[in-house]
């Protein structure tokens, strides 16, 4: 019976943890759990408290209130060197005075692992991160991606209950970052260790994670799978922060079940799904993703049955698969971003042309003004 209980228990449980610095609330009465073996990301803008939260889990910061449990055991008053968690630092913090092998063996030696055994485990770990035989290399001989792997190997070799990662991909160039995203996810799946990853880069969080928590002002706005965050944002902040969105402010004019009609200051009337309590007469904000809008040169290309608008193309922002056009709606002069179809159908679109657009109200969300 205790066995099944511990198997069901999350690896990390945060119970109403708070931390304030003077008047600034870094972490605000936060509670959540991280499932065993999952890749959990905390996504948020800088200053949202995610670093404080991670350092709390690692033990470098004591929470003012609340508790932290790792594998069921309370971590209050437990020093970082006694916690079953390891951290991959933002700038990796590899020890330049030691070789690659010594870096990875450092933690094992601290635990009193015999040097022969430690050597085997270091060799095995280096093989697993794809750097076999680099024990004797100096840290400054490694490339950015290799350093990354050594930093992860140094933590994973200790078989922690949790691996904490503090934006470790931030210092890498774009191509390598894309590559490391895939690699990290594969590595996590292989070793099965629970990863807690913090980042301000939504793409990193969406690509790698099983669960993402969007954090703002010391609180979680929403916790869910990447798909849930993208397709069913629960707050205006999530809708604006995850993915790209066109945002409109205005008042609700009509409500029809869960559908509401918002009229923007410029006079544009848009239907959307309401999220939370928002009703006629209230100030609200509405989000539509550029990729949820259909665009065509004539109204016939658009799906029938939804209201359509005409607009003038202001500029074409070509970016391969992420290409968008900026258009000005004819009557309200509202500015919208619309994704270009990936088929290349509108690849010859030029500024100044007239286009028509429409969207499904089920793919737009309306939130009460905060």
């Amino acid at each position: 019976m205790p066995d099944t209980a511990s198997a069901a228990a999350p690896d990390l449980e945060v119970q109403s943890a708070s931390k304030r610095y003077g008047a600034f609330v870094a972490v605000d009465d936060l509670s959540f759990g991280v499932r065993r073996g999952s890749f959990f990301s905390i996504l948020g803008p800088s200053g949202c408290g995610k670093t404080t939260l991670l350092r709390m889990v690692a033990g470098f910061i004591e929470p003012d209130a609340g508790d932290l449990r790792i594998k069921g055991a309370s971590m209050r008053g437990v020093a970082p060197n006694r916690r079953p968690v390891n951290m991959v630092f933002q700038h990796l913090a590899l020890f330049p005075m030691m070789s690659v092998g010594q870096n990875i063996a450092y933690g094992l030696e601290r635990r009193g692992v015999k040097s022969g055994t430690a050597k085997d485990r270091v060799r095995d770990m280096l093989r697993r991160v794809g750097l076999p035989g680099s024990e004797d290399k100096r840290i400054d001989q490694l490339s950015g991606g290799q350093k990354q792997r050594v930093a992860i190997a140094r933590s994973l070799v200790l078989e922690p209950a949790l691996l904490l990662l503090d934006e470790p991909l931030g210092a890498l160039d774009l191509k390598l970052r894309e590559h490391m995203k895939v690699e990290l996810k594969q590595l996590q799946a292989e070793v099965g260790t629970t990863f807690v990853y913090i980042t301000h880069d939504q793409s990193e969080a969406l690509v790698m994670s099983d669960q993402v928590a969007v954090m703002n002002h010391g609180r979680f706005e929403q916790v869910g799978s990447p798909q849930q965050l993208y397709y069913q944002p629960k707050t205006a902040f999530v809708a604006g922060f995850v993915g790209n969105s066109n945002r409109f402010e205005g008042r609700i004019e009509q409500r029809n079940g869960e559908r509401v009609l918002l009229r923007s200051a410029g006079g544009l009337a848009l239907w959307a799904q309401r999220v939370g309590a928002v009703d006629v007469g209230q100030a609200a904000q509405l989000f539509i993703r550029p990729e949820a809008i259909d665009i065509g040169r004539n109204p016939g290309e658009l799906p029938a049955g939804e209201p359509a608008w005409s607009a003038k193309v202001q500029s074409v922002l070509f970016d391969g698969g992420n290409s968008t056009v900026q258009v000005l709606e004819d009557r309200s002069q509202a500015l919208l971003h619309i994704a270009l179809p990936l088929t290349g159908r509108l690849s010859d679109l030029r500024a100044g042309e007239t286009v028509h657009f429409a969207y499904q109200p089920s793919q737009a969300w309306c939130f009460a003004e905060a």
Partner: protein
Amino acid sequence: MNTATHRRWMIALLLAPALLWLAGLVILPHVELLLLSLQARVGPGEYAASLDQYRTFWEEPLYWNTFVRTAVISVLATALTLLLAFPAAWYIAKVARGQTKMLLLVLCLLPFWVSEMVRTLGWLILLRETGVVSSVLQLVGLADQPVELLYHDATILVGLVYASLLFMVIPLVNSLESLDDSLIEAAYDLGGSTANIVRRIVIPHAAPGIAAGCIVVFMLCLGNYLTPTLLGGKNSLWFTEQIYTQFITRFNWNQGAAFGFLLLFLSSALVWVGLKLTGQRFGAVMKT
């Protein structure tokens, strides 16, 4: 004149004062002293090449003892200075922030606004038989008669450490400041204890700074004349005193020059041994 030769002339001109200084005040006198040390007086006003001066040093136990004693106390003073300066430097580099940091550095510098002579005389006022410390000890009943705290080896050590502290603190602060805090956190996170982190992370990182501070302090101690003479009195037996005696009292320039070269050799040899023992390269040390 083309630009290349022009540039060369400019560089020569800019370097001229330093080169003149080096040649006139360092190299020339040393060559002269070396020649002097290799001569012996054979008659009135007559000198011949000889190794007598060095032989005297070897055969006279007083000189030999003074030499070894000077070296040992200097090494001891350097080690003590390092032990005292390290926590202070750590606090200044890693704990103190902003104004406090500035204030602490200025506090280290403050004693040096007064000349060494006055500072050392200050120690005399504190430590002599009728001095402040002795009076206080009698007042609180820890001593029933005046205590003479001057003229001990320990007094010399105190004076030397006091005079050298700044020269150890500055390079240590510099090298500790460049240590990334996340390295310490990472080591701590991986299970390192404080003692282990100091040994494996902090000291290896600060090693060039430690070596630089030790070299400077050691040389300052070895070549110090005022502090050992004033605080150690007649018992001080410091090697610089022997040199002074030879040159000024005995008027034996040849012997004095030989002693001077022996001291130069001693400091170079000990610095070399120190660097070898700690595995530091001279170039890296000089950069800090």
